[in-house]
C-alpha cells in the first residue's frame, strides 16, 4: 500500500482471462493474469441469504484476488475506509485461509462500476449499513482457501507427490517428507491451470491464526504525521478554491447579487452564479470566504419560507392518527389490548440530525470539453461518477473519479449532492476548482436524519407482563429516495429495523409505518439509520412497561428472552459487569438497553449523573456484545467506543430545528459535539460466538440513546420521550 494511503482508482483486473474452471455454481472463477499468475474472480452474494446468489444465472464478479510471479497478493474490493478499520479486517479474511501474513495482502480500491462492485447487502457500490464484514465473511475466506488449494495442487503436480502430503505456510508450499518448498510466486502461473476445487473446506474457528486476534490498523501511520490525503487535501496543478452560499431556505432561488465589493477582495478570481447558489472562486479559502461575505445576495425564498419544525412534527402526528403499512403483525393485538389488565400509552419524538463530519463537505472538479475529472472522498463511488456524468452531460466513461480518504462518513458521504454542486460550479470555471463548504453551509445544507413521531401502546397482564404491543410511527423513508426498488408496499427494511422482530417474546404485536416526507427537507442515512430512532423508542417504552409493572428493568426484560439466548446472554453480562442493582448516590442512575440490529446483539448499561440544574453527564458505559465471530477485536472495541460517543452526542445535544424555512444551527456552538471532558469511560465485553459476523459500525450508537434516557429516569424519575435531553425538565425541585 502506498505510504500516504491515498486511494485512487485501480485499473480493472484483466477480465479477458481464459476461464479455466467454474465452481460453486458460478460463485468463483479462476484464470490467469497477463504475465503469468493466478486470478480469482468472485461474486459477493446478494442479500443476507447466501444461497440466493447461487441461483444467479450469469456470473458477474465483484472482487478479485491476484497472485503474480513475484508472489504479490492483491485484493481488489469495493469497500472504502472511513475509520472503521475495513482496510485491515477485510484482508485478514483472505490472509487467514491463504496462509500468509496480513502484511502480504495488498489492497487495490475498486474503480467505480455499479455492476461489478455492488455491496452485497445494499445492492449498490456503497460502504454503509455496517455490512462490509457481513458481506465478505464467507466468500473471501473461500477465495483464500481456493487459491491455497490450487497452489498446493500446482506444487504437488510439479513434485509428483500427493497434494495431501503438502502444506501451505507463510506464502510457501512445503513437502516435508522431501524438504522441498516453493513460493506462491513460483507456483502462481501453474496454479492458474489447476482445477478449481469444489466445496473447499474452511478452517475451524479454533484454528484461526489471524481472525480474532488484534491486528494493527494499516491505514493509521499517515494519519498521525499529516501525510494522509483526504478529499479536501487534493491539489491538482492550478487548482483554485471556491466556497459557496446556497439558498438559506430549502428550495429558494438567487434573485440578485451585488458582486462589486467581492471582486475587490485580493485573491478573488471569479463569482459563479447558479440558480440556487452563489460561489466565489479564489486563490485560497481565506479570499473565497472574504469574497463571499462581501457579496450582497437577495434570495427568492420560495414556498417554504415559513416552514418550522413544529409544523413538520404536527404533520407527522396527524399522520399517526390513521393506520399505516403493516410492518409486523403477530397474534391479535386488538383483542389482547382489550383484555389487558393495565394499559400504557406513550408518544415519542426524535429530531432531525446533521452528520457534522469533521471534514466539511468538499469536492474538486475539473471539467474539460469532453471529460470530467473528480476528486472526492465518497462512500458511494459509482454514484458519485453517475451524478457527475449526469450533471456534466457526459457519458459515464468520460468521468474519472479519484476516491480519497474520508474525514468521517456516518452516512453523509453515501449521498453525492456535493458532487453535483461542485460539477455545476466547475462547469463555469477554467481549470480545476476545489469547492469547500464552510461549516455553516455544511450543517445548514446537510441531508438530515429524519424527524420521527411515534405512538405506542401496550397491554399488560395481571403480573405486569406485556400481552399486547402496538407501535405506529411516521417519518421519511430514506430508502424510498436512495434505492426506490427496496421501498415496497409502503415499507422499507431500514425504517422498520429495530421496531420489528424484537428479541422479546411478545404474543401480540402490531407495528405500522407511515411514510411522510417533510416538505423540501432532504433526509439521508445517519449512523445507525432506522435503529437510531426505533431502538430509542422501543427500549425506552420497554423501560416504561417495567416501571408500570413495578419491576426491575433488567429482570423484566430477561423474563421475555427465553427464546433468544444470545440476547439474554449479552443483557446478563452487561448487567453483571456494570454492578447493576448496587446502590448509587442521589441523582445518579443506571439505565439499560438491549438491541438486535445489524445482525449484532448488544446491551448497554449507562451510568449518568444529573446535576441540580438538570445537566446530564454520562459517567460510565458498560457494553456487552455478541457480534458473531470477531475478525479484529480491537476494531470491534473501537467501533463500540466510537458509536457510544456518537450516540451520546445525539442524546445530549443533537437537534436540527427549522424556523422561517431555515436551519437554526450552524456551527459547533449551536450544534454541539461531545468533548473530551464529557466522555465517559467505556467497557466492552465480547461474548464469544462462532455465528457469522454482525455489523459493528453503528450498533453502539443506536443502543446508547435509550440507555442514557433510562438512566436519567432512574436518577430523576423523569421519563424523557423526546430527544435530545432537555435539561429544563430535569432541574431538581426546590
Amino acid at each position: 500500500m502506498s505510504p500516504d494511503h491515498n486511494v485512487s482508482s485501480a485499473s480493472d483486473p484483466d477480465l479477458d482471462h481464459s476461464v479455466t474452471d467454474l465452481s460453486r455454481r458460478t460463485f468463483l472463477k479462476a484464470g490467469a493474469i497477463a504475465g503469468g499468475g493466478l486470478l480469482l474472480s468472485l461474486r459477493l452474494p446478494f442479500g443476507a441469504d447466501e444461497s440466493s446468489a447461487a441461483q444467479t444465472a450469469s456470473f458477474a464478479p465483484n472482487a478479485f484476488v491476484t497472485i503474480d510471479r513475484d508472489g504479490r497478493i492483491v485484493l481488489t474490493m469495493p469497500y472504502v475506509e472511513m475509520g472503521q478499520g475495513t482496510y485491515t479486517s477485510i484482508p485478514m479474511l483472505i490472509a487467514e485461509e491463504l496462509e500468509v501474513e496480513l502484511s502480504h495482502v495488498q489492497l487495490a480500491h475498486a474503480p467505480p462500476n455499479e455492476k461489478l462492485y455492488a455491496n452485497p447487502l445494499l445492492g449498490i457500490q456503497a460502504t454503509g449499513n455496517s455490512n462490509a464484514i457481513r458481506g465478505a465473511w464467507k466468500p473471501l475466506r473461500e477465495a483464500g482457501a481456493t487459491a491455497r488449494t490450487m497452489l498446493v495442487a500446482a506444487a504437488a503436480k510439479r513434485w509428483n507427490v500427493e497434494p495431501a502430503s503438502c502444506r501451505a505456510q507463510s506464502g510457501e508450499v512445503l513437502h516435508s517428507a522431501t524438504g522441498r518448498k516453493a513460493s506462491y510466486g513460483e507456483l502462481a502461473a501453474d496454479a492458474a491451470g489447476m482445477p478449481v476445487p469444489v466445496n473447499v473446506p474452511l478452517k475451524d474457528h479454533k484454528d484461526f491464526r489471524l481472525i480474532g486476534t488484534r491486528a494493527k490498523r494499516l491505514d493509521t501511520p499517515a494519519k498521525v504525521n499529516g501525510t494522509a490525503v483526504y478529499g479536501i487535501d487534493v491539489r491538482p496543478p492550478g487548482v483554485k478554491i471556491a466556497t459557496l452560499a446556497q439558498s438559506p431556505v430549502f428550495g429558494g432561488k438567487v434573485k440578485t447579487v451585488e458582486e462589486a465589493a467581492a471582486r475587490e477582495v485580493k485573491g478573488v478570481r471569479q463569482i459563479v452564479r447558479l440558480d440556487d447558489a452563489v460561489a466565489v472562486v479564489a486563490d485560497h479559502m481565506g479570499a473565497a470566504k472574504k469574497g463571499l461575505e462581501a457579496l450582497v445576495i437577495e434570495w427568492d425564498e420560495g414556498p417554504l419560507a415559513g416552514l418550522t419544525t413544529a409544523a413538520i412534527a404536527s404533520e407527522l402526528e396527524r399522520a399517526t392518527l390513521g393506520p399505516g403499512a403493516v410492518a409486523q403483525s403477530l397474534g391479535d393485538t386488538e383483542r389482547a389490548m382489550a383484555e389487558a389488565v393495565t394499559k400504557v400509552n406513550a408518544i415519542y419524538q426524535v429530531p432531525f440530525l446533521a452528520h457534522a463530519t469533521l471534514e466539511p463537505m468538499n469536492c474538486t472538479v475539473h471539467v474539460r470539453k469532453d471529460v470530467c475529472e473528480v476528486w472526492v472522498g465518497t462512500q458511494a463511488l459509482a454514484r458519485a461518477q453517475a451524478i457527475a456524468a449526469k450533471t456534466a452531460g457526459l457519458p459515464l466513461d468520460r468521468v474519472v473519479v479519484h476516491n480519497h480518504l474520508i474525514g468521517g462518513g456516518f452516512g453523509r458521504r453515501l449521498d453525492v449532492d456535493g458532487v453535483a454542486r461542485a460539477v455545476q460550479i466547475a462547469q463555469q470555471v477554467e481549470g480545476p476548482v476545489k469547492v469547500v463548504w464552510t461549516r455553516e453551509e455544511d450543517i445548514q445544507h446537510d441531508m438530515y436524519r429524519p424527524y420521527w413521531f411515534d405512538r405506542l401502546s401496550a397491554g399488560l397482564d395481571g403480573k405486569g407482563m406485556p400481552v399486547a404491543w402496538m407501535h405506529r410511527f411516521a417519518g421519511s423513508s430514506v430508502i424510498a429516495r436512495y434505492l426506490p426498488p427496496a421501498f415496497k408496499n409502503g415499507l422499507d427494511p431500514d425504517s422498520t429495523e429495530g421496531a420489528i422482530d424484537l428479541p422479546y417474546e411478545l404474543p401480540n404485536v402490531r407495528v405500522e409505518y407511515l411514510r411522510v416526507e417533510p416538505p423540501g427537507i432532504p433526509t439521508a442515512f445517519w449512523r445507525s439509520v432506522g435503529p437510531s430512532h426505533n431502538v430509542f423508542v422501543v427500549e425506552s417504552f420497554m423501560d416504561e412497561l417495567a416501571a408500570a409493572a413495578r419491576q426491575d428493568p433488567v429482570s423484566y426484560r430477561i423474563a421475555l428472552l427465553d427464546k433468544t439466548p444470545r440476547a439474554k446472554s449479552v443483557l446478563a453480562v452487561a448487567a453483571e459487569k456494570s454492578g447493576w442493582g448496587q446502590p448509587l448516590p442521589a441523582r445518579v442512575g443506571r439505565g439499560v438497553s438491549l438491541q438486535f440490529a445489524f445482525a449484532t446483539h448488544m446491551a448497554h448499561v449507562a451510568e449518568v449523573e444529573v446535576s441540580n440544574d438538570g445537566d446530564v453527564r454520562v459517567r460510565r458505559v458498560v457494553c456487552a456484545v455478541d457480534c458473531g465471530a470477531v475478525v479484529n477485536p480491537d476494531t470491534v472495541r473501537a467501533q463500540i467506543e466510537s458509536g457510544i460517543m456518537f450516540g451520546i452526542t445525539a442524546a445530549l445535544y443533537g437537534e436540527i430545528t427549522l424556523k422561517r424555512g431555515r436551519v437554526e444551527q450552524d456551527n459547533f456552538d449551536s450544534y454541539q459535539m461531545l468533548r473530551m471532558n464529557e466522555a465517559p469511560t467505556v467497557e466492552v465485553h465480547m461474548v464469544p460466538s462462532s455465528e457469522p459476523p454482525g455489523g459493528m459500525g453503528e450498533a453502539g450508537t443506536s443502543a446508547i440513546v435509550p440507555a442514557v434516557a433510562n438512566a436519567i429516569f432512574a436518577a430523576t424519575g423523569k421519563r424523557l420521550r423526546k430527544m435530545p435531553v432537555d435539561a429544563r425538565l430535569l432541574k431538581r425541585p426546590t
Partner: protein
Amino acid sequence: MAFSIKVNGKTHNVDVDGDTALLWVLRDVLGMTGTKFGCGRALCGACTVHLDGAAIRSCITSIDSIGSSEITTIEAVGATAVGARVQKAWLDREVVQCGYCQSGQIMSAAALLASNARPTDSEIDEAMSGNICRCGTYVRIREAIKVAAQGGGQKG
C-alpha cells in the same frame, strides 16, 4: 501584502491580505495540508498548530499577527521528542479512526506534554476539550497521552 513567516524552521514569503487566517496560508498557499479545516471559528481544534511551542487555532490567527514567531505544524512535530512520543503513542494505542481531527489532537497533546510532563486527568481535559473528535476516540486519546507522558521518563 507580503509577509514572511517561519514554518517548521523554513522561511516562506506569501502575498495575501493581512487578515488572512494562517490556516489558509498553510493549506492553500504553502500546500501543507496536514493542518485541517473543521469549523473556522476556533470551536473544533482541527487546525491546531504551535506558535512558539504553544497550541493555537490557526483558523482564527491572522497572518499579520505572527511576526517573527515560529510556527510548527503536524508535518514537523515528529522532529521534537515530545511530538514523536505522542505520534508513537497514538499508533500504539490505535487511537485513530477517520483521522481527520488527529493532526489537531496530536498538536494539542504535544503542546500539553511539552509544558506539563505528567498531566492529571483534569489537566488533560482542560487542554484537550477544545479538540472535537467526531469518531469519539476520546477514551484512547486520554490513554495515549498518558502513555506518551510516561515515555518521557520524568516525574511530575
